[in-house]
């Protein structure tokens, strides 16, 4: 064994990985070459010092707790969007299957109708909201973030959004999610709530002044007029969806859901700032 071969084996020798054959020739060379022996000893000492003087750190208990808590509040790709929607604790498999079929049929129908545009580009806010609700139910429009904590979603959606984003704690809400988008150069916020036993509630949000100007996005005149007088506007689509519009600070919110109209207004009224 020459010095070059010896040096290549130093780490193996230090970590006690040399086979019996190599061990002998390695020891023979170390006995006859002072430089190589010293180099081996230096590396052995270094390992020993690191091993004995640098203790492996143990994560504090609060780190474990914080990890568990973060994971429980976070979405996983494994869940899938539809998996999340049907993630009820004791959801009857037959109901889930029927519901899934309805959604698949709805999605196919939607794909045929509007060529699967993920977010509606209609100028009419009510039409946009209904289209987006349908796309949400079909799994085409997916939240970028889902959480059990509304504040997580609000923080995420509020970044660079030029109006007050409303994400509230609703009674019986399993989780909420959010998406940001721009339509005709206007920033839009989309919030989705999964209300246990009731279904999905979709809420479209846009700057109130932008909506009232009506240049890039806007409302039909009658809706604008009712909203200005009462602060609320409601209508029902032929498919049985309820649409509720209201003002929140400098934001126009438009909620769409198949939740019964009275329940939906009560839900939103309770939380109306």
């Amino acid at each position, binding site marked *: 064994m020459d010095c070059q071969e010896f040096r*290549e084996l130093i780490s193996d020798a230090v*970590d006690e990985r040399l086979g019996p054959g190599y061990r002998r020739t390695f020891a023979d060379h170390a006995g006859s070459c002072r430089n190589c022996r010293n180099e081996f000893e230096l590396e052995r000492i*270094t390992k*020993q010092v690191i091993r004995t003087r640098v203790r492996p750190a*143990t994560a504090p208990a609060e780190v474990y707790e914080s990890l568990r808590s973060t*994971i429980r509040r976070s979405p996983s*790709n494994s*869940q899938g969007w539809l998996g999340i929607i049907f993630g009820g604790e004791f959801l009857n498999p037959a109901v889930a299957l029927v519901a899934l079929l309805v959604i698949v049929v709805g999605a196919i129908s939607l794909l045929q109708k509007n060529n699967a545009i993920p977010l509606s580009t209609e100028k009419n806010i009510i039409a946009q909201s209904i289209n987006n609700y349908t796309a949400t139910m079909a799994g085409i429009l997916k939240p970028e973030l889902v959480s059990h904590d509304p504040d997580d979603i609000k923080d995420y959606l509020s970044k660079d959004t030029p109006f007050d984003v409303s994400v509230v704690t609703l009674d019986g809400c399993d989780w909420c999610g959010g998406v940001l988008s721009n339509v005709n150069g206007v920033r839009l916020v989309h919030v989705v709530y999964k209300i246990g036993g009731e279904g999905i509630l979709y809420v479209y949000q846009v700057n109130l002044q932008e909506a009232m100007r009506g240049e890039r996005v806007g409302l039909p005149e009658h809706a604008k007029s009712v909203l200005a007088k009462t602060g609320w506007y409601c209508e029902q689509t032929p498919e049985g969806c309820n649409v509720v519009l209201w003002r929140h600070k400098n934001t126009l919110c438009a909620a769409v859901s198949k939740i019964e109209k009275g329940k939906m207004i009560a839900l939103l009224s309770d939380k109306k700032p």
Partner: protein
Amino acid sequence: MINPIKGLHKEFEKEAIPHTDILYNYALRMTGNADDAHDLLQETFLKAYRFWDKYEKGTNVRAWLFRIMKNTYINVYRKAVKEPDTVDYNDIQNFYNIIREDSTDANDLQEKLFGHLLDDDITKALESLPEEFRTVVILCDIEGLTYEEIAEFVECPVGTVRSRLHRGRKLLYSKLFEYAKKRGFVGKD
């Protein structure tokens, strides 16, 4: 029917959480402080959970988590940290010569150099190693992983692990020697 979300949480927690300590230790040695280590750990687990469907069941989950942490560190934290200066290997050779002349045997060297150094000095020396060397030294000398495991963790051949360890330990020794010289524990050349 069991809630699939809760089932997923439980499965992930059962598989991943037991590896928290090794990941935290690595994060601490790479970032150099507990707050950043905690953040890096959180980010790693969030990504791992998010991409849990990409993890091949039955493979080495610890190596998978480690790779996520290493990539996150490279993408996020490394940019903010100044890499240590590279060391001229000729200096190390010269240093070996000085040591050999100063000392009679290896035990004498160990006592002379490290007997008086603070644990903090040793930790600092380790944390100042270039990342690729630091990683293998941490995994081998602190965590006690085999070369084969380290190769899987850092996705490189076993031969590369071997040579990085050798060079990493030599660098470390030279840094410790510098600390000892500065503190007057060994004679200045």
